[in-house]
């Protein structure tokens, strides 16, 4: 499959000069945000771009969307160099930074959409068809006539997502799209992003809401302090953790159990080494078991394992 995002040996350094007096420069603090990051994303892939705070996720997304210039390295998105910001490139990508608004603050949301209709050169029919579809999926019909400043964070983020996808871009870059969402909104956005993936869009998703990411992506690129520490399938990542979770409920308190990490009444959570899962489960079933589940560790636990003490 065609590689639509190609990143090779990407480096970015931030320099912050402290002022000694008025505008006179003093010491310069240097932060290496990206230390030679390389990865590719194929057409139609939905990739989670994860890592702790300060790992370089947002910096990468800003470079891929043409906002930032890298210090070193090669980047190609759909064959374009992002920071040249050619019109064809900007028309082919959809970008959302959850912590920043793309909506005009003081005018109704639909007026922002109409503005971008002209910017993207969309015809009237396509525009209203897209607005209708996105409004339905994201449940934003009632917000379209309100100025962005009157919306709650959750409402605004849904409108931002609609705006990101309004022109039907080939590549979608999302930085923290779940910021400040309640569970219901997150569910809506998850469903929406899965739908985007099914439509064959290439999506790079950065988020700290790992349970949401887990449901949407199949591949994860994991970043730590500016370097990639894992790039592969979500299932492969989970294999990195040497245990599985066993949740077991007994009809009465069972007495001492192996590998217990938590126990409430007659229910216990065990973290069992992968190679011992069968034998431990057999052992448990010999007791008076009401319910037993074996699970992979969730993404949060995996990340804590792979990037300890971040």
């Amino acid at each position, binding site marked *: 499959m065609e590689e639509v995002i190609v990143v090779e040996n990407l480096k970015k350094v*931030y*320099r*912050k000069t402290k002022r000694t007096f008025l*505008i006179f420069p003093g010491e310069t603090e240097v*932060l290496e*945000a990206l230390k030679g990051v390389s990865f590719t994303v194929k057409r139609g892939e939905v990739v989670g771009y994860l890592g702790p*705070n*300060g790992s*370089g*996720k*947002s*910096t990468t997304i*800003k470079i891929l*969307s*043409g*906002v*930032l*210039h890298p210090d070193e390295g090669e980047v190609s998105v759909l064959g374009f160099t992002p*920071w040249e*910001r050619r*019109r064809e490139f*900007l*028309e082919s*990508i959809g*970008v959302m*930074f959850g912590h*920043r*608004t*793309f909506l*005009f603050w*003081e*005018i*109704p949301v639909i*007026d*922002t959409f*109409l*503005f*971008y*209709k*002209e*910017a*993207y*050169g969309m015809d009237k029919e396509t525009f209203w068809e897209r607005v209708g579809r996105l409004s339905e999926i994201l449940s934003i019909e009632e917000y379209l006539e309100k*100025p962005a400043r009157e919306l709650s964070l959750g409402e605004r983020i849904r409108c931002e997502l609609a705006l990101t996808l309004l022109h039907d871009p080939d590549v979608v870059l999302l930085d923290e799209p779940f910021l400040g969402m309640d569970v219901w909104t997150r569910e809506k956005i998850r469903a929406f992003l899965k739908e985007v993936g099914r439509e064959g869009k290439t999506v790079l998703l950065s988020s700290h809401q790992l349970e949401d990411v887990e449901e949407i992506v199949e591949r994860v690129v994991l970043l730590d302090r500016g370097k990639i520490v894992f790039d592969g399938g979500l299932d492969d990542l989970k294999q990195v953790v040497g245990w599985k979770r066993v949740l077991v409920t007994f009809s009465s308190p069972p007495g001492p159990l192996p590998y217990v990490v938590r126990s409430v009444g007659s229910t216990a959570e065990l973290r069992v080494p992968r190679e011992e899962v069968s034998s431990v489960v057999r052992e448990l079933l010999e007791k008076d078991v009401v319910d037993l589940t074996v699970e992979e560790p969730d993404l949060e636990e995996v990340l804590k394992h792979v990037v300890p003490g971040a």
Partner: protein
Amino acid sequence: MSFRALSYILVGLKRYKTFPLDVLIDALKGPVLLLIIPSLWYGIGAVGSFSLRELFLYTAASHLLVLLPIYVSFPVANMIRTGFLPSLLTKPVNLSSYLFLRNLGSTFVSLVSSLLVFAVIYKVYGGVNIALFFLGLSLAVVFYLLLGQIIGYLATWFYTIWGFQSILVYLPSLLFGGSLVPLDLLPSWLVDVASFLPWKSLHYDVAMIVLGRSPNFLPLLLWIAFLAVLERIVFHVASKRWESWGG
């Protein structure tokens, strides 16, 4: 005008939908100012060689030269400073046109009411050289648009750019540009200093066109050429510094 340009203006214009009282305020503030200032000067006798006719014409012209170049063109600096620029950089939007046309829309009512009052004063007091005046006005717009962008980009180096706005725009337009008091009414040494700076060509020289003074746009054109080159250079350097610190 293309639909894209129109949509830029509409974004600014639609703010009146959210703040309807601004229509009334914007419609009144220009005319009130234009009535008060010349009457005040006349009242206190600070008119020098100016007749009342000339005072009204000068003030009306000078008001447009502040409103359109400074209040429409210059706010691009604030839009850049507030961080909206990186968002726009990911969209197929011509930045300079967008910033100018959007402000044009958001000050539309002020602009129309001031133009109407200018038209009345021009007609009543027999102003001249209207086409040359509007040519000078357009050049002033271009000058402040470029200056606004340059000052806005400085936000990638400095936490606050208010100082630059005061030093490079508001104060010199009042002091060296004669936008509050005609330069003829100021001490001669100040007028001498002003002739070496761009604000005299931007405000005073252009406003005096409607009183019949021959225009000389050469200094203004040279300043614009200088700023156009400077804007490209500063943009090129600043664009490598957006969000100079962060995740």
